[in-house]
């Protein structure tokens, strides 16, 4: 099952039989990633197409977030080539909620509305239709009733769903989710998994999420890449097996 650094197997169109797929939204070729010239991941090959539901599994500290940050342009790559066929504003990024500063007194509505900031000019009054859309994306993740609540007073699962709603507010082509299923209750986990599947199947979005729990990734993702000890390889996911 294991095949290291294999672009054809990791996210290739051929495996899904989608020969007519457009260009990959993101592709990495022999990319080295790390900090201060110290490589964390080496020779990463990956291509993500619209409709892909990718799971990235690996233990803590294996470089999952590093890979995401490189894809999002937040971290320069140390070598190889990385190309994106959509602008960065088409990326919906869901960070780990613990990475956000609880010092900020923000309501759920304010967090979700941030996703539209790229479309709203400075000094412009926040448009009504964007407010309406904020309600809709919260509906999508099933927590519209929490719209007035303080974000940092929510449970882990609720926070995660709010951040997914914020990413959807961006109107993305690709969603990158950093550990969306970690530290959340079972109900939230199911809802999040359902939302991710629905986004890929019905809306044609590409979804790339990470988790340190391989079983969880296997239950949700169509295709899986694993990272550990600086290496990356692919495994088949749920749908491939079920197909």
């Amino acid at each position: 099952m294991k095949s290291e650094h294999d672009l054809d197997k990791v996210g290739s169109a051929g495996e899904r039989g989608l020969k007519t797929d457009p260009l990959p939204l993101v592709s990495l070729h022999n990319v080295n990633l790390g900090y201060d010239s110290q490589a964390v991941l080496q020779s990463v090959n990956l291509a993500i197409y619209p409709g892909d539901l990718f799971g990235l599994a690996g233990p803590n500290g294996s470089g999952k977030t590093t890979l995401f940050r490189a894809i999002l342009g937040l971290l320069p790559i140390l070598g190889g080539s990385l190309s994106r066929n959509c602008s960065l504003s088409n990326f919906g990024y869901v960070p780990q909620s613990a990475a956000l500063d609880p010092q900020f007194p923000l309501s759920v509505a304010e967090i979700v509305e941030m996703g539209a900031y790229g479309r709203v000019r400075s000094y412009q009054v926040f448009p009504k239709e964007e407010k309406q859309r904020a309600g809709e994306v919260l509906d999508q993740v099933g927590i519209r009733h929490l719209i007035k609540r303080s974000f940092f007073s929510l449970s882990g699962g609720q926070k995660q769903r709010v951040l997914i709603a914020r990413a959807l507010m961006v109107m993305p082509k690709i969603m990158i989710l950093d550990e969306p299923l970690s530290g959340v209750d079972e109900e939230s986990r199911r809802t999040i998994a359902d939302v991710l599947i629905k986004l890929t199947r019905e809306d044609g979005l590409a979804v790339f999420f990470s988790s340190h729990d391989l079983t969880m990734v296997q239950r949700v993702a169509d295709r899986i890449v694993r990272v550990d000890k600086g290496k990356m390889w692919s495994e088949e996911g749920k749908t491939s097996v079920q197909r």
Partner: protein
Amino acid sequence: MSTFFEIVSPSYLLFPALLGTMIMGLVCPLIGSYLVLRRTVFLGLTLPQIAAAGVSFTFWLQQSGLVPQWEQSERAIGMLGSLLFTFFGMGLLGYLEQRGKGLAEARLAAAYALAGGLTILFIVFNPAGQIEVLNLLKGEVIALSQGELRLLAAVFGGVLLAMVAFHREFLLISFDRDLAFLLKGRQMIWDVLLYLLAGLIIAFGVILAGPLLIFGFLVLPALAAKPLANRMTSFLLLSSVLGVIMAVFGFYSSVRLDLPLGPTDVTLGCFLIFLAYGLSRISTRIGVTVLALLCAAATLSSCGAKTTVATVPEAKAIHDEQLWLAKVKNSTASTLLLPAINPLRSLAEMAGKVSSDYRQSVMDLLRDDLKIELEHRGFRVLLPEEKDARFVAFPTDTGAAVRVAREGKLSGLTFVGEIRRWEVEAQKFVRVLADFKLIRIDDGTVLWERHIQRAIPTPSATNVGQASTDAVREIVRELFAG
């Protein structure tokens, strides 16, 4: 004077100062909120200190002749120094931050210590006298002129507009830099703009209000608003509202109790923080409501605290016309002699009323004006020293005054006054603490008394003598006109 609504009335003499404080209280917390949320509160402490070093530096340069004397006012020159040092300091701190060496807190602490040290050293070097420079550094907002108020309104108004217009960008860059990068690209400009706006209000605020008050307005309202707000918009709004409350009630307390404005405001701000944390234990909505009610109650009680201030009664009203007007007692540490250039003295000399080596004092001025007004009230005013040259100033202690009068075989009424504090500050206002009494000598009854404790603005004064003269007129006007 001194009811709440009188102080906030546009006709009040210190209204420009109150307005200036309110503007600072409104705008500073908006910037301060971001400093608090971004965990850079120390920057709000360090930058005003750097600005203060800039003020003392430019004064030192100018007074020591290293740069030519400028025609602009002292405050304008101080403002230039404040601006230059603030932006240089911000640039240097930003550069060190980019290099990422050491702890941010350590850099700010070192910068604060250095700026504090330099401020004192430049003051010590200054040959022009430390008191003047210290006064400017204290930033007496009470001496705010109309021109300075306009400048303050323009600068702070601009900052307010920018904060409102770009609030989304400031929030995004402060809360989630990654999302800001994805949506708006590498937008260092928003960080720069936020710190530029902070630098502007700090540089201008320090010279107009002093570093302590500016730091207080930046940080304390935001800290007080935090436990009561669960939305960013309500947090910013509440910070500003609390800043204005701090400004108004601090100003009111300062005037009523004759306390320095900066420390009074800061103390009030700290009280608001404790109050807010106490209220937050109830619930946010109830907390805000209780806070609003407390403010309203304080306003009403300060309005209700108006004591009917009686003016000096008419002679007919107390059925006694003979009044011994004692010399006003000077209980300050200073002689309160007016400068030799006092034009009133020249007039007196010309009239042959005083010798050329006689110098008039504040007490003389005050008694002269009191005499005129008392005569207008129908009193037949007599001077004790005309009866017996051994009479000196009477004490304001009733028993002692009556004893002195009886020993001197005086009868009827006596009017006594005592100056306990008389400080002319930068010729812009005079801090006064004085007591006056009208006593019936026969039975020791106090028919009228008045305690004056306040800063009297003297905006048109061009020298210390003129400021004292103007202040004396204002006191007498207050005693007789209410």
